[in-house]
């Protein structure tokens, strides 16, 4: 009994914790009359994939999906590019103000979005980047950079300097050593960092909401977040969008659980 009890409790609690999401999943397969039925039911024979098709047809979710993919992919590439150069500097060089720079990146990670949003909005508008993918990509890149640098810094530092020294003796320059020796060795870590960055941009809501305004540039979270106020009668289509939108994060998490958890702990304990 004493052995069974925790397992039993755990099973119940897990089910309770998944309840809000399961309810959305159930709704995403129901036709509208079933969604607006009182009292509500979990399953009905008329469940189908129709809400998923409707969502793409009646709501601008195909555009949102394209925007989300463009923004998250570009932000990931830019973040990784700038981030690995910076992380390489922190991991392998001694220079003046090194501590100050590290602290700067650490502090920007704490910076509330709300305390930069107004001037950022004005800046992007003045530069003609308001309501463009490019503008949002720039902002996401900057927001993701501190954490990316911090993760990569850890991965680079774990590679012994001897490997790199050998390359330098063979006549490589420092940058060639980065490209030919460090980057290939750190590839698994870089892959994990890329996933973090991608998800960070994919799930981001605040900046995406305020810095875009047209259907052509809005990302999926903005679509869902705004429609919740406007289209409350099509809960099934909204639920379908929410479920579909959650699949990439869930797949990535399942595939990379261990690294994810380590990165999670690392992010908190810097």
């Amino acid at each position, binding site marked *: 009994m004493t052995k069974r009890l*925790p*397992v039993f409790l*755990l099973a119940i*609690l*897990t089910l309770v*914790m*998944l309840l*809000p*999401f399961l309810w*959305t999943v159930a709704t995403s397969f129901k036709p509208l009359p079933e*969604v607006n039925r*009182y*009292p*509500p039911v979990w399953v009905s024979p008329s469940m189908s994939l129709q809400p998923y098709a409707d969502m793409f047809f009646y709501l601008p979710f195909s555009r949102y999906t394209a925007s989300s993919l463009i923004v998250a992919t570009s932000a990931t590439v*830019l973040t990784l*590019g700038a981030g690995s*150069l*910076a992380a*390489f*500097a922190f991991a392998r*060089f001694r220079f003046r103000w090194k501590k100050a*720079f590290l602290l700067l990146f650490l502090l*920007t990670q*704490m*910076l*509330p*979005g*709300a*305390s930069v*949003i*107004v*001037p*950022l*909005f*004005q*800046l992007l508008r003045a530069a003609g980047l308001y309501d463009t993918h490019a503008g949002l990509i*720039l*902002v996401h890149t*900057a927001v993701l*950079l501190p954490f990316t640098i911090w993760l990569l810094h850890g991965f680079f530092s774990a590679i012994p300097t001897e490997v790199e020294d050998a390359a330098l003796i063979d006549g490589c320059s420092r940058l060639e050593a980065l490209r030919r020796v460090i980057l290939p060795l750190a590839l698994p870590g870089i892959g994990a960092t890329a996933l973090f960055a991608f*998800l960070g941009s994919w799930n981001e*809501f*605040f900046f995406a909401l*305020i810095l875009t305004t047209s259907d052509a540039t809005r990302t999926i*979270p903005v679509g*869902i*977040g705004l429609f*919740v106020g406007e289209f409350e009668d099509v*809960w099934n289509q909204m*639920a379908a969008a*929410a479920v579909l939108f*959650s699949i990439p*994060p869930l797949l990535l*998490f399942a595939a990379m*659980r261990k690294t994810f*958890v380590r990165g*999670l702990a690392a992010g*908190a*304990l*810097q």
Partner: protein
Amino acid sequence: MRRSLPYLLLAPALLFTAFVLCYPLAQNLVNSVREVDLVHGPGRWNGLANYRHVFADREFWLALRNTAGYALGGTLMALGLGLALALLLDRTTAHSAPFVTCLLSLPWVISPVVAGFAWKWLLNDHFGILNAWLSAAGIVGPGTSWLGNPRTALLCVMAARAWQFYPFAMVMFLAGLESIPAEQYEAASVDGASALRRFLAITLPNLRPVSSVLLLLGIIWSFNDFTMVFVMTRGGPIDASMVLPVLVREFSFVHFDLGKGSALSIVIFAVLVLLSGLYLRVLAGRERA
């Protein structure tokens, strides 16, 4: 060249950070002491008038109280839940434990917008499953509105926030539990300590460092959180769940008073600097210990 190489390597990252974070923050300080509106841009300097407007605003104090309650309440709920689940997971030797940990992490992995949406639909007055069950059990009347009632709205958003944050606490607590040396428990068992006594004398003290980190991080993140409240209630009904980040948007992009919005965002920044300082001190203390 050799000397400047590290700075060159840092340059791209610094440029991004400077343009998107440092410059706006500085600009915000400037904006906060002048009249700015969305159409005409920056106007006259007006000293501390924007700050006076913020502090004279009833809505600000309400939002401040709500934000503090939301951050503290949501975080404490999440920590309690995370600790309970971590303890259960730690006891479970079943092969499925990693899989269950994975399932339990779902609220943290999905987008905050989806989390907010799921809760809003769960709590829906007529067609949500929660009301169906509660009214079937005779606990509340049918059609009870949770998010439309000023007395319950903030509490619901807090619960949703706790739901989103508990997996993080759970994973951190689990790591903390695993790092407690088994000898401590063995020694206590030899001395005949009860399970409760072992929990109080060994488990809890060992989890203290991770708890303080989690508490502060949870408060910092929730203090900054815009998404959950915006998606679930937009700060309503009648400001009952209004929090500071949502209020910044309200001042700046709904009332178009960018000066007042800037002043408020500087106030938020000041609070965050205090909290971050505290957090860094706690971390430094950990490293020394």
